[in-house]
Every structure is written in structure tokens, then in C-alpha cells.
């Protein structure tokens, strides 16, 4: 399974997008392949709530959606809003980033400092785990 993580300014912008918007059907994001409204944050930028003692994450701005597919979809991979393309099985198996990360504007960054939630069930966080 190949996950294509897309970042838009808003959900409305995603719906209006010629490529991503095709996955918005019958008034909803296609539930079989889309993981909409995900949150992405930096693990090295969390804080602690002094009252509750709990870790507080600070989601990065924007509206994220992952679109899963059996193979790489060039229209999504090459889209300027695509921030990451991940081979889910390769991610689960570990190994070099060149096999796990297949594209996206974030591919060259320190991915280990990012987190994403919720994940597709059965997937590992492509940005690392706590």
C-alpha cells in the first residue's frame, strides 16, 4: 500500500483541487482509501501541560489527507501539494529511507522529528514513533 500525504490550506481547497477533489464523492471523502483531516506535528516541539502533566502536541498549520493506493499514483506523487509518499509495507519492515520514502516535498527533511495521527490501521508512523 502506497500512502500519499497531501497538505492543503483548507479542506475546501482540497475538495476544489482537480486531483485530490476526485476522491470527494457523494459529499464525503472516499472512506475506503482516504484518511482525511490528519494532524501533523513535530515531536521536538511538544510542551507539557503544567496542570495535567500531559504532553501537548502543537499541530502544524494546514489540512492534511492521506490517500492510499495499491501503487504509486503519479498524479498524486507529482502534485505540488504532496508532502510525502510512503511505501507502507516497506515502512513496517524498516530498511533504508530510499525504499520507504518514494517522494514528496518533505522527503529530504529530518522526518524523524515529525508525527502524524491518526494512522491507517496497521500502518507505522512514517515519521517515527515515540
Amino acid at each position, binding site marked *: 500500500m502506497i500512502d500519499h500525504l497531501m497538505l492543503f490550506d483548507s479542506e475546501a481547497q482540497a475538495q476544489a483541487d482537480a486531483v485530490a477533489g476526485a476522491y470527494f464523492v457523494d459529499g464525503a471523502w472516499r*472512506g475506503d482509501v482516504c484518511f482525511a483531516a490528519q494532524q501533523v506535528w513535530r515531536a521536538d516541539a511538544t510542551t507539557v501541560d503544567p496542570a495535567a502533566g500531559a504532553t501537548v502536541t502543537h499541530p502544524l498549520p494546514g489540512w492534511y489527507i492521506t490517500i492510499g493506493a495499491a501503487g504509486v499514483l503519479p498524479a498524486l506523487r507529482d502534485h505540488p501539494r504532496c508532502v510525502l509518499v510512503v511505501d507502507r509495507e516497506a515502512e513496517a519492515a524498516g530498511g533504508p529511507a530510499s525504499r520507504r520514502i518514494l517522494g514528496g516535498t518533505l522527503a529530504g527533511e529530518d522526518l524523524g522529528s515529525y508525527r502524524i495521527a491518526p494512522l491507517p*490501521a*496497521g500502518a507505522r508512523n512514517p515519521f517515527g514513533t515515540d
Partner: protein
Amino acid sequence: MFPFPPYLSRPLWVLPGASVDLDFINGRAWGGGMDALISVSRASGGTGLLPSSPPGAAYPSFPNNTARIVPGAGLLVETSRTNVLRDSAAPATQTTETLATGAWTLWVNGPGSAAVAAGSATGTGFGTATNGSPVTFTLTAAGSVVVTVTGSLAAFQLEQGAAGSSFIATGAVAATRASDAVIGTGALATAYGRVAGTVYAEYGPIQLNAANRVIGSNGPVSLINVNTVAQIIAMYDGSVSLSGPAAPLASVNRAAASWSPSGRSIVANGGTVGSDTRPRGTPGTLYLGSQSASIQGLMGYLRRVAFFPARRDDAILKAMTA
């Protein structure tokens, strides 16, 4: 050599006259192999552990894009849900991230309990869930809740909705099970596309829901809809809904619908047949257990589906479902 009479090659378990018969309970198909008759899209794993499962029950796990067929139960079809609890297969007390307003359900599996209380959220209906007794509460202001675990639970799940769905294993963060989009292909799609025909479906248990599709399509046309809240079974041609009898939901339900250019009929559980003189509408892609890839999922088991290549009499429909 004389051709082998088709009826002699038909297994005894196949419903008489059916051109396609999918017996999900026993994992067998007639009219083609199971893989040739249905195609499943679900971009996540899934499981067969339900809120009603016995404590510590062994449960199957299904990879991406596979039919969740559980022997003795049927084909599990659900829409997407997210388990917001971390490490859900090793339950421990925790405070959630911010949850949206609306109905939420907490359910557990195993000996012990999980109590849910307001953190920064505001709501009503908080309580303690035990195996087989979920708690559904309503958040009126978004925020966190605190889930306190007692005993040795094997699994727990907190999801948005008025009832729980199948178990979603999580790790350090929440996880989402994608919708099951079960599309009829091959001989099944052909049978659905006939200008006249009959469909029989057996389903249950399913969740209470205002719009569960048993046999739907990605157009507005559907053959068997169940409104388990209003207890109505219906058929929709894209503009006019044909209601069958009041259909009190049982753990196992049987429904049948027939259509031809001159009319359509629908019945459930041997009740009074509803019929009119409208055609069934232009069929779209056939979905088993949903309206489309996203909405109006059955939220339960489809046990059997059979299509017949002619419109059957109302009396036969009634007898089939009794």
C-alpha cells in the same frame, strides 16, 4: 456426447434458480469464485473483534483490500472509524487528545472495565464499560476525556458514533480503519444489471443506524435499504422510495427485492410485501453492504446474497424471507 445438464452440476447448497449465490457464512460462492464476484477496497487493516465478542476471544486480522469474511458470521462491512485510544491492545489509563462534539462509544474486551470521565471536554452520559456493555456518551463541548482502566483488559476502543464497530489496533497514536467498499464484479454485476431480477439477502447482526444499505449502488439507486431506527426496509429508484413492511431488527434478517420494467417489490422477514409499478431505476456500481465507498455502511454482517435472473412472484419473495 450430450451436454451435462446444468442442474446436475449445481451444488445442493445453492438456492434453487439462483444465477449467483454468495454464502459468506460458509465462505463459498456459486456463479464464479468469490474473488471473481467481489472486489474489496479498504486501504487499512481490519479485524473481526466486535463489542459483542466474548472476553479474550481470538479474532482474525485482515490485510488491506481483503474481504473480512468470518466463518459462521459472514462478511463484515463497516464504514470508516478511528480508535482514539493509544496502545489499544494493551489497555492502560490515559487522557485522550481533544475530541469533537457528538456521540462517542467506549467498549472493551476482557476481564475488567474502563471508566470514561470528562477531562477538558464537557458532556453527558459518562460511565463504565465492561465486556459486552459499551458506554455511549455525548460531548457538548470539545476537549479531552479520561479513560481509567481497571483489571486486565485485552482491548479497548473509543470511537465517534452511537455504537461501537470492530476493533482497531493502535500504537503510540490513534488509528483509522478505512471503509469496506465491497463491489460486485463479474457474474454478480451482470445479475444486478439485468432489466428484471430478484435479489435475496441475509444479514445481521447490524448496528442501529438510520440508513444501512444491504444492496446499494454508487448512484442513488438501491435494492435493499434498512433503516434500523425507524425499522423500515425500502428500495429506491433514484426518486421514489418503495417501503416494505415494518421490519423490526432481529439478530438475523432476511430480505428480498424484485424488479422488472413493470414494477418492483420488497419484503423482509416474511412480512407483507410492498410493491408498486415503477422500474427500479438505472443501476450504478453494485455495492454490497453500503451505498458507496464512504457512506451508509451496513455496520455488521452480510451473511448471504443471491441473485435470480427473473422477477419472482411476491408470494415467493415472502416465503423466501419467512
